[in-house]
């Protein structure tokens, strides 16, 4: 009830916490990617979360691994190795830059960058009182743990995806170790879906009492022109990574392409799988039916998702799947694999086993063939996607902070 009231109160300005009962917190959030420079759900999550936390009256310091251009958020101080605040105190130390391989699009000196970042985090000294250190995934866990320990602050770790999932069960030991470090030391762990929560308990031995679920959300977009779905498009947007199961999408497209000569299949995004996917499309005989868009800007992404006839997210593993939620919010009928976290918050989408090429083909065809079906799914899915927003998610997160602080104090 309190959540609903807070959400419906914009007329009287942004609701702020009453200082008497719930003092505002100082949250140091250890980040990695941040808009406009991001490739997945983590960057969006970080941006929307700190925005809401600051609006709720909390003080947020956001740490980034590099001093890069980023969106500014009122009320949030950004810090990065080598920034204006940092430079005078560490003369002679040059921040280590990530090197992105032009061939694969991945960072080749990842381990060194992470080490450098963690050392910098652990050494941050001028932060004032810190209530919570909030780390995402694995990259800042070692430094974040040390910082929380030194500042007597609670440690909260949000897991967006695990190394087992990203590597399709061939984890890189170094990343796995950093992940385990964070999970072992956190006062509270946030998983972005129930499915992921179960994995953290089963595979990482996280104590069930410490793991909370906070889903992702989408920001409602303004009124958009009615979609012009000519030609009809079936679209995937996201990173081109093995865990995303884009093979399945292409094979399903090949299965129905001859029966739908006017339909355009679209793959948006970049990533290491691109060469493989190009070859696969050619081998399947649908090279002329699939458009690979490469890098897609935020504005293009919003436009593409709202204009698509069908959005497909066939991930082998998908802890949440924020792109699916964005598609639903745009009123686009959505098909996801059964393990996707997003399927936990809505029944108004089609759920298919990630390996079931035929079933993906069936569902795509049915949505293309039967307009009342795609209309109804679109309308109902949109309602589900927008029922709760980032404000609710931030309030849930603050609740987790308070639990963690309470535990840290009584420990």
């Amino acid at each position, binding site marked *: 009830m309190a959540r609903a009231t807070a959400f419906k109160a914009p007329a009287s300005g942004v609701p702020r916490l009453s200082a008497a009962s719930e003092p505002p917190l100082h949250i140091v959030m250890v980040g990695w990617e941040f808009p406009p420079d991001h490739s997945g759900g983590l960057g969006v999550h970080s941006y929307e979360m700190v925005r809401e936390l600051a609006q709720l009256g909390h003080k947020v310091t956001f740490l980034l691994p590099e001093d890069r251009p980023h969106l500014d958020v009122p009320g949030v101080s950004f810090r990065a190795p080598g920034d204006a605040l940092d430079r005078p105190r560490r003369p002679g130390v040059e921040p280590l830059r990530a090197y992105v391989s032009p061939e694969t699009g991945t960072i080749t000196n990842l381990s060194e960058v992470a080490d450098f970042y963690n050392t910098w985090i652990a050494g941050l000294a001028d932060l004032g009182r810190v209530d919570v250190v909030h780390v995402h995934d694995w990259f800042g866990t070692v430094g974040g743990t040390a910082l929380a320990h030194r500042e007597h602050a609670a440690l909260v770790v949000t897991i967006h995806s695990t190394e087992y999932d990203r590597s399709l069960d061939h984890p890189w030991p170094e990343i796995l170790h950093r992940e385990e470090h964070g999970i072992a030391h956190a006062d509270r762990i946030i998983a972005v879906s129930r499915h992921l929560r179960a994995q953290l308990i089963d595979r990482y031995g996280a104590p069930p009492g410490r793991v909370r679920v906070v889903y992702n959300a989408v920001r409602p977009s303004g009124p958009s022109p009615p979609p012009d779905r000519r030609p009809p498009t079936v679209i995937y947007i996201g990173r081109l990574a093995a865990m995303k199961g884009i093979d399945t999408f292409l094979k399903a497209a090949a*299965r*129905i392409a001859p029966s739908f000569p006017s339909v355009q299949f679209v793959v948006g995004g970049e990533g290491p799988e691109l060469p493989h996917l190009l070859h696969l499309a050619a081998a399947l005989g649908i090279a002329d039916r699939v458009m690979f868009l490469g890098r897609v800007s935020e504005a293009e992404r919003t436009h593409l998702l709202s204009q698509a006839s069908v959005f497909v997210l066939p991930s082998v593993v998908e802890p949440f799947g924020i792109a699916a939620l964005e598609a639903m919010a745009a009123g686009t009928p959505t098909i996801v694999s059964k393990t996707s976290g997003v399927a936990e918050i809505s*029944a*108004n989408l*089609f759920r298919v086993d990630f390996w079931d090429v*035929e*079933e993906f*083909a*069936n*569902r795509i*065809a*049915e949505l293309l*063939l*039967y*307009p*009342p*079906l795609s*209309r*109804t*799914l679109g309308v*109902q899915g949109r309602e589900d996607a927008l029922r709760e927003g980032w404000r609710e998610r931030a309030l849930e997160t603050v609740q987790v902070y308070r639990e963690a602080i309470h535990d840290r104090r009584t420990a």
Partner: protein
Amino acid sequence: MTQIVLELHLHQPWRLGRFRYLDLGSGRSYFDIPRNLEIFRRVADRSYRPVLDRLLGLVDEHDEFRLSLSVTGTFLEQAREAAPDVVERLQALVGTGRVGLVAETYFHSLAFLLPPPELHDQVELHRELLRQTFRQDPRTLRMTELAYSDHLARFAEARGFRAMLAEGWPGILHGHSPTYRYCAVTAPTLTVLMRHFPLSDDIAFRFSSRDWSEYPLTSEKFAGWLGATPGDFIGLFMDFETFGEHQPADSGILEFLSALPAAVRRHPDLAWATVDEAAQGPPRDTVASPEIVTWADERRDLGAWLGNDLQKSALEAAKKVGRLVRLAQDPELWTDWRRLLTSDHFYYMYVGGNPADRRVHQHFSNYPNPFDAYANYMNALTDLRRRALAASGHTE
């Protein structure tokens, strides 16, 4: 003297199997016959067999006991395959001469929403089936889900029926009691028998509900309520499966049924009657219903079957395919098409509504959600359309 008209409805649809888009043109059957028969056998064990045995016993024990049955064509088709002894029990019960039979559409369908002559054809098919199976010519008609309107009343009268069943809904009774005989404004010779929905639903919906203030319902208490209800008759119309399936045996529902005639006997002003017996006698007033009224959900309209875009578009598509099927004149296509008109398929496509109605809908659905139900149905219909086009020699 107030007559008690117990009318029990027996129906099983031919549920579809999963018929995917990629199954179009495969020649696969739309209907999952083994699964349907399995469900039938399960319901026969829990409800049809034990309840029919009890009813046979009651007819034997109580000379005054009467009841009425409506048995759909799809039910009898499945019964013959899955549990022929259920058909024999029904024949034995009707053979006692104390059972009124009620005609309807053979396929328990939405044919009343289709252009003529489909409704006529389906009612005649059902009449013929009842004649052959039970050697009785029904004089009373009901529509699927008790649909009733002025238009349907005129149809019933024109087809020679003496009575028609309807929901005793305040929306058409305007303060009058459902316990009197009415005649339709559009059909002066047709008696309209109204369902007394509070008393019917005390058994059908509330019997085993522990948070109901009248729980537990005993046959004495219920007979007391019947005795205190003035009127020509009290229409207790409900699913046969209420006994043993919707209300499970361990709720005591079968014992309740068995004890009811003895409890009623203690009220000298109560008597049992078949639908045909209740329809004899002058009507008290006329009733008008320009819109279709049903017995479903809180609104008693067609919303349960045609309330959303999915359902409406499915029916429209079925109508179009029906024109092709008529042209093709192939009995197999006819049967498949008519089985697809069974109202249950549309019921599974229900979206939204209030939580109580949605729970009822989900309880009766064999799909995880209405979208699966719709996609599956449309695939089958699309396949049938192609077959009909091929058979009729027409092109699109």
